[in-house]
């Protein structure tokens, strides 16, 4: 289990910052209509993917959802390939075929993101089954929202993973809302980390806005899973800052709790991490400014790359249907 040190703490902050600024650029670009794809932003939820993915080994794998920009960057995907994908360009991570909802980079372990709620949960479970059958020492992490536990495949997968003691971590990003519905409006039992207990899937709950807590808790779970103890569910509590889909915030809408906006602001993962770094004396104001500048430059380059990249040619339309 990697212990949090200064270098890693700074790295985690920088990773979150890159995700945040990249998505803020997506918001800024959205009115130009160059991004012709629905966007599900992970702004405010960066700590979960950053903390978790930095605790993964090289051979480990991840699956995600349509809210996948953050996961893609956290897994090591280039912002240039992400931007190009959002533009529908041939240089995108899915060669323009997937768009915002289908981030992918199998070469670095991101096996795919799906736009059907919970649909990658069984697929990730099967990936873990293969790891076990092939005696590969690796784990599979699957990220999904609190809406993911509404679907039957979550329970079917969890039960099977428990039965076979599969090396899979179910990462529940609880941002409080499935589209516009609260957990308590959809379930009698709202302690989601406990929801798989009777199936043999133990769960734990953590602050999903504290990247250091995420990293430590995920690394501990990863070590246990790799030791063959079977699957685990990690629930990370976070806030959805933007609307379910789209480039705006919508805290004024009646589905929100009155204090959602204030809570999200107070618990912003970048603010939380910045305070922690400063408290330990691990980063100076000049560091934050330099990191911001570097990230913005990277994003400028990524957008320029997307802009100048070609669209896929007509020969690409039918090219990928069958191998």
């Amino acid at each position: 289990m990697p212990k949090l040190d200064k270098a890693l703490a700074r790295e985690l902050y920088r990773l979150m910052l890159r995700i945040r600024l990249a998505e803020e650029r997506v918001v800024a670009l959205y009115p130009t209509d160059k991004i012709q794809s629905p966007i599900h932003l992970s702004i405010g939820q960066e700590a979960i993917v950053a903390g978790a993915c930095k605790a993964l080994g090289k051979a480990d794998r991840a699956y995600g959802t349509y809210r996948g920009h953050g996961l893609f960057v956290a897994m090591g995907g280039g912002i240039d390939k992400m931007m190009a994908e959002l533009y529908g360009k041939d240089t995108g991570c899915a060669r323009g075929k997937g768009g915002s909802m289908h981030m992918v980079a199998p070469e670095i372990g991101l096996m795919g993101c799906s736009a059907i709620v919970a649909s990658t949960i069984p697929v990730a479970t099967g990936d873990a089954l293969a790891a076990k059958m092939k005696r590969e020492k690796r784990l599979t992490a699957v990220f999904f929202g609190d809406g993911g536990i509404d679907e039957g495949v979550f329970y079917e997968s969890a039960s099977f993973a428990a039965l076979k003691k599969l090396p899979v971590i179910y990462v529940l990003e609880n941002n409080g809302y499935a589209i516009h519905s609260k957990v308590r409006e959809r379930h009698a039992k709202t302690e989601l980390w406990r929801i798989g207990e009777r199936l043999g899937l133990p769960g734990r709950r953590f602050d999903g806005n504290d990247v250091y807590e995420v990293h430590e808790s995920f690394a501990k779970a990863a070590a246990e899973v790799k030791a063959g103890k079977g699957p685990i569910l990690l629930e990370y509590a976070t806030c959805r800052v933007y609307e379910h889909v789209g480039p705006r915030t919508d805290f004024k809408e009646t589905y929100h709790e009155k204090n959602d906006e204030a809570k999200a602001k107070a618990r912003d993962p970048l603010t939380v991490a910045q305070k922690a770094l400063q408290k330990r004396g691990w980063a100076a104001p000049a560091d934050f400014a330099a990191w911001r500048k570097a990230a913005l430059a990277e994003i400028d380059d990524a957008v320029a790359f997307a802009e100048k990249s070609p669209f896929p040619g007509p020969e690409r339309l039918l090219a990928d249907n069958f191998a």
Partner: protein
Amino acid sequence: MAQKKFGDAIHAALTHAMETDPSVYVMGIGVDDHRAVFGSTKGLVDRFGPERVFDTPIAEGAMTGIAIGSALAGMKPVHIHIRTDFLYLAMDQLCNMAAKWRSMFGGVMNVPIVVRAVIGKSWGQGAQHSQALQSLFMHVPGLKVAMPTTAADAQDLLIAGIQDPNPVLLFEHRLLFDLQSEVDESFPVLPFKRTVVRRKGSDLTIVANSYMVVEALKAAEFLSAHGIEAEIVDPVTLVPLDDAPILASVKKTGRLMIVDTGWTTCGVSAEIAAVAAEKAFSSLKAPVRRLGMQPVACPVSKPLEKLFYADGDAIARAAFAMVGKPFPAAEPPVAVHAFKGPF
């Protein structure tokens, strides 16, 4: 070459695939029990162990996703469903995931899964143990779909399907499991695209698939005895469809009847009729005729069940109408195949 039953050919193909490729595994409800999916998986668990041959929870949705995920990670699952009707529970994973994975991620990954699903008929299978859903899956790009008719087809399609990097669905008709034909015991890998002419004829073309080939052949004997020679063409693979033998036959006979094991609406028969209309319109001397299941849930009551399915009798009567001859005063052909028992 050897004579084998359809079910035994599947068993032999599975055994061969598992022997030659350690990434092949078999899962599904009942694959390791004493019934062994009509014997098609008999003894595999003893031979290859419970890690490669295992029963599953009754959870078709997740288990299909699990097959997909394992395939993405280098395994080659053969997922078996003792009834096709259960595939509705796996539709999301088959159609939203397996069918899309390669295409929506720009061609960087493949999903080499094989799904075997058995179509029930006879002995009161009723509304939910009798469905033939091939056309549902033909509609979705990214899935290969085939219906073996003979033991040789069963072996060849399974061997080719397991080696295919794409998702493959095989629909096996329950009534074919005990029928024998000659198979090549060297397990050749043949292309997964074939249409087979089962009988030569000059007066009309009957495109029939799966068990309907048996009924059509029975009808053809009767027709031949009364002066009508039917050519029977079997599109064994529906996706990809080899339409050349169908079109060649239609151009020769000028008459096309299509007999599917499933419903006609948006079905195999609709697709093949459309192919003929698009590519052989000027050869048609008569309207295309389609036969299939009646547009209703399959009834259990025997007299109603008989009316529900197309059979040799219905095929023969439709053939006479198409060639403009009165149906002869003779004993019509009867179906001879049925099974009795809970499976």
